[in-house]
Structure formats: C-alpha cells, structure tokens
C-alpha cells in the first residue's frame, strides 16, 4: 500500500526502481521465484506437466479459503471455523445430491444446483452466526469461531456418523471436480476468478475501502459514517461462503461428502494469509499476495513430497517457515521504519 500511495515521483536510477517495486510487493514474489528456480534445477520431476497441474489444483482450494480468511483478518478478526464449514458443506451438499438421486434422475443439472445451494447455505448460516456474534454481541472472534467450529464439526459428524457420503452425479465429479478445461484444472479457474473479483473489490469499490477502514480503526470508521456492523457481518459471511465454495470443489474432486476433509485447512489458510503480509491486528492485506502465499505453501509441500520427505517432518519445516517468514517481514518493516 505504501508503494501505491507515494507513486507521484518517478524513480531515477534502476536500483531505486527495483527497490521501490520490492518495497511495494514485499519479499514473497522474490522468495517464490527463487524457490521455483531452485526446485526446477534440483528436483527432476518438478517441472513435469502432471506435477504443475497438481500444484495448481491443490493450491486452488487453499487460495479460495485463504482469500476468505484474509477478509476477516483485515477487519481485525479471525475465523477458526473455516475447516468446519468446508466439512459441513461437503457433507450437506453430498447428502442433498444423494437424496435427490432417484427423484430427479433425469435432471442431473438440478441435482447439482440443489447440492451447491445447500452447501452455500451452510456457509452463509455459519458466517452469519459468526458475524452477528462478533458485530452485535461483541464477542471475541477467536472464541466465537472456536465455538462454531465445534458446533459445525459436530453437526457434520452427526449427519454422517463419520461415514463418507456417496451418490453424487457423475458430471459433478468428472466435469467440475476432476475436469480439465483448456488443459488446466477447473478449480484453478474458480480460484483465479475469485482472486480477480476480490482484487477489484479491494481496489475499486466502496466495500473494499470500508473493510480496510474498519480494520484500521473501527472507531474512526464509525465516526466517519461507515456502517461498520453491516460490513463486519458481510466480511464473516463472505469468508464462510468462500470456505463453502472451496468445500464444494473439494467434495467434487474427492467424489464423496466427508466430515473430516482436511483438519489442517484452517491453520493453513491463516498461515498463507500471514506469510502474505496480512496483519493479524487488522487493516492490512492484499488478495493477490495471499494467493501467492497459498501457492508458496503448496509448492513447498509438493517439493517435499517429490523429495520423499515424510509428511510428519514436512510439518516441522512448515512451522519453521511460517515463523521465519513473519519474522523476516517484521524485520524489513522495522528497517523501513528506521529509514
């Protein structure tokens, strides 16, 4: 943001130009480029088409979830319930589709529509509960979403007794979840579209500015006439619905509704956002960076998979990387503040 706002004077020397664009973008793009080049040189199969498709596909889900997490972080909150929303969406959409399988056998399109609506409704409800509790009851977002996480997971398990739900239309699984479009996985387009829309929202709409304003200083925002409560709730609803969308895509890819999809997803989404420079204190965060953060995490995971590193040791690496990335960011900010 600092880079954009001081864009008046033209940079004079090439060095200055580089350092300015570095300051604007942060160290994340540089880190990602360096890592990709290093992996391409040292890991034989890294640049294979199949592997690139894998990374794109698996990071799409995280990009969508992390974009939602970013919104809530910007307004100074948290959403621990995202993983539960993904599970609840997966279970309820699969149950609806499996339930309508016989009655609407001739119309797979309608079945899919009903499933998607059921999934999104779950996201909307959880988001609304989160938002209302935070905005009107003023409960700490950490505890609210901790509560809804417990409730959501409980319902997802209760609905299925922990058993996967099968019986979704073939076109949902093969066309949407596992399909390729112009050689690229369908979820990739979904993620790209969501990032584009969020980018426009953040940069060119009133809503984007209001959300930054609320996170920056909620008192000031209210005094300047921002309907803060409405936008707070909106941020939580959007966050949960993005988790729902990701849940639908994941369900379609797995081919069944699961109450336990990816227990690490919530923490990963927070990690991706935080690596991308989203401040936990609110007011700062850009969706394109968050997308890069998610891709960085998944690229690292993929490289470690290719190197046949035990997934349990991968967890250690990821932990160290998250802390170091934030520490580096903190240092560069402090240095900038001194200059």
């Amino acid at each position: 943001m600092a880079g954009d706002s001081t864009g008046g004077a033209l940079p004079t020397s090439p060095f200055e130009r580089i350092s300015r664009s570095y300051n604007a973008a942060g160290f994340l793009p540089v880190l990602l480029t360096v890592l990709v080049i290093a992996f391409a040189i040292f890991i034989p199969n890294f640049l294979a088409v199949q592997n690139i498709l894998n990374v794109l596909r698996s990071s799409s889900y995280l990009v969508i979830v992390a974009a939602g997490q970013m919104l809530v972080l910007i307004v100074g909150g948290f959403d621990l319930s995202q993983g539960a929303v993904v599970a609840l969406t997966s279970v309820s959409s699969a149950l609806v589709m499996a339930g309508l399988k016989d009655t609407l056998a001739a119309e797979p399109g309608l079945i899919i529509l009903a499933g998607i609506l059921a999934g999104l409704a779950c996201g909307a409800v959880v988001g609304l509960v989160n938002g209302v509790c935070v905005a009107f009851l003023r409960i700490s977002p950490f505890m609210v979403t901790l509560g809804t996480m417990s409730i959501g997971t409980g319902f997802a398990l209760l609905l299925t007794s922990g058993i996967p739900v099968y019986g979704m239309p073939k076109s949902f699984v093969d066309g949407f979840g596992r399909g390729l479009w112009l050689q690229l996985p369908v979820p990739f387009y979904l993620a790209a579209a969501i990032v584009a829309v969020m980018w426009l929202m953040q940069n060119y709409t009133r809503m984007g500015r209001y959300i930054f304003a609320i996170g920056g200083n909620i008192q000031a925002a209210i005094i300047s006439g921002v309907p803060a409560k409405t936008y707070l709730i909106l941020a939580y609803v959007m966050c949960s619905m993005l988790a729902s969308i990701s849940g639908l895509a994941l369900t379609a890819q797995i081919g069944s509704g699961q109450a336990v999809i990816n227990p690490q997803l919530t923490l990963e989404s927070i990690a991706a956002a935080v690596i991308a420079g989203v401040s936990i204190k609110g007011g700062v965060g850009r969706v394109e960076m968050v997308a890069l953060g998610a891709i960085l995490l998944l690229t690292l995971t993929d490289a470690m998979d290719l190197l046949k590193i035990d997934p349990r040791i991968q967890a250690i690496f990821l932990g160290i990387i998250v802390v170091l990335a934030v520490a580096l960011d903190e240092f560069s900010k402090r240095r900038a503040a001194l200059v």
Partner: protein
Amino acid sequence: MSDVNVSGTSLASGPRQAERRNTLRWGFTLLLPLVIVAMELAVSLVEPRVLSPRNVVNILVQSSYLLLFASAQMVVILTGGFDLSLGMAVSAISVATALVTTGLAAAGTPMWLVVLAGIAVGLGFGLLVGLFNGLFVSWLGINPFVVTLGSLNICYGLATTISGGRPVFNVPDAFSRLLYDGNFIPEIPIPITLAAVVALLLYLLLDHTVFGRSLYLIGNNPRAAHLAGLPSKRYLTLAYILCALLAAFGSLMLTARTGSGEPNLGGSLMLESIAAAVIGGVSLQGGIGGIVPVILGTLFVTMLSNAMDLLEVGGYVQQILLGCVIIGAIFLDRIRVTRT
C-alpha cells in the same frame, strides 16, 4: 468497541448505579459456582450416580489434568497472548519421556535414575518449547498466534516422527507409581494432590510476587509496563516458559496415567484448555484472570462432559453443546466486563 460509552456513563453514575454495578459484579462472581451446583443437582435427579463418591473422585482426578493445562494457558492469556502449541507440545513431551524411560529401563538403569531422567527430559523439552515461543513473541515482537502456530507444527512433526506415529508402550511402573498410582496423602489420589500444590504455588506466584503482578500489567497496558521500567521482554519470555513447563508437567502426569507415550494425547487439549480458562472468566484481551476462575472453568467443563457421558449423550452432540456453551460463556463474560 463501546468502551467509550461505558466509561462515559460510569463517570456520570450516582451511588445507586454504583450499587447496582456492585450487585451485578457479585452476581457474576457467584454465577459459575451456582451454575455448576445447579447442573449437578439437575443431572442427579435423572442419574443419581453423578453424586456418588466414586464419580466425584473421578471428576476431581479428571479436572486435575485439565487444571494444569488451563492454568498454563491462563499465564500467557494474562499477558494478552495464547499458546496454540500446548496440545501438540503435550503429545511430543509424552512421547519423548516414554522413549527415554523405556529405553533406559531396558538398558537396566536403576529405577530412580530412570524416573528422574524421564522427568528431566519432559521438563527440558517443555523449557525448549517455552523458550522458542517466548523469544519469538517478546524479542522479535511476532504475534503469538503465528509463533505458536509454528511451534504447533514443529511439535506435531516431532511427536509423530520420533515415535513413528505409534504409541510407546511399557513406561516403567515406578514412573506411574510416582505420578499416578501412589499416595502422598492417604485416600487422596496423587493427581489431585499435585494439581492442588500447583494451584497453590501459582496463586502465590501471581498474587504475591512482582513477576506475577507484572504479568497483569503487561496484559492490561504493555506500554505502561514498559514505561514503568518493568523488564517486559524478560517477563513475557518467562510467562511462555512457565506455560510450557506447566504443560510439560501435565503431560508427565498423563503419561504416568496411561503408562504409554501417546502421539495423539494432546489433540483436543489446546482448545479445551483455552475454553476452560475463558469460561472461568480469564479475558482474552489480557490482564484479567487468576487461578480461581481457572479452577471454576475447569470444573465446569469436566463436570459438563462427565454429566453428558453418564446421560449417554453421543460424542458428536457433546461437541455441538460444548460449542454453544463456549459462545454463551463468552457472551456473559462480555456483559460482565462492560456492565461492571
């Protein structure tokens, strides 16, 4: 958010309003104990076994473990942080202790040395985790959420790799005898004695030492603490170390109880410990809390799940109810903080 209004009204309030606030404050202080008693009485009408001496002892033993973890969490929550790594640290410590004790016992080391080494390894591991969290939070100024998220992953990786993901069985009996089976005081199970001693020490530490009082100030107003000349960074680091040591001690007690090192031991502990502390009235904003609220919160959480177990409520429904209770408790806490 509405703190501005609230302080405005309190300035203008007369003696009657002050009196009402006082009544409210007492009401809130007595609320949780009353709820606990009411809940037990109500459940005992349906299921008399709830109040049987055996079940009461059972509840107390259960809560002694949670009490250690919740008070560990409370120490860092007081400073305005929290520790997400607690549950996984408990797992990793349990596995490490079990590996060391079984290994030494197999090599024919004298028992007292085995037990001593097990305790030293467990507490040493805790010290390292606390040092990691504390240094990153206080000296580098990184948000506790991020730091402890990182150490959560690291501990998870360690817990599962050093054990190969499987429980480590055959922890020597002497270890279990010291921390679980035996008696210091006749008729009182050791976990209860240990938890009571820890609670007493924590009470003295928080209420009667400079370090303890400073934690409250650091949580309330870090800037004031700094300006008052407190060594905030050192105290903050110490708070995280204390938290990890308490968790490590709890982990040793749990390992002694199960007789094995379990990589899945701490799975739900992180959330349970935060929930118990916060339900008792420890504020996530920092600066408000103490050992008594933690004891009450711990008893409430343990009794609730014990009652639901006896009433044969399913695990999934229990999870849903616990979520509702957490939100309800925080809501009440919010009212308490703003109205009194």
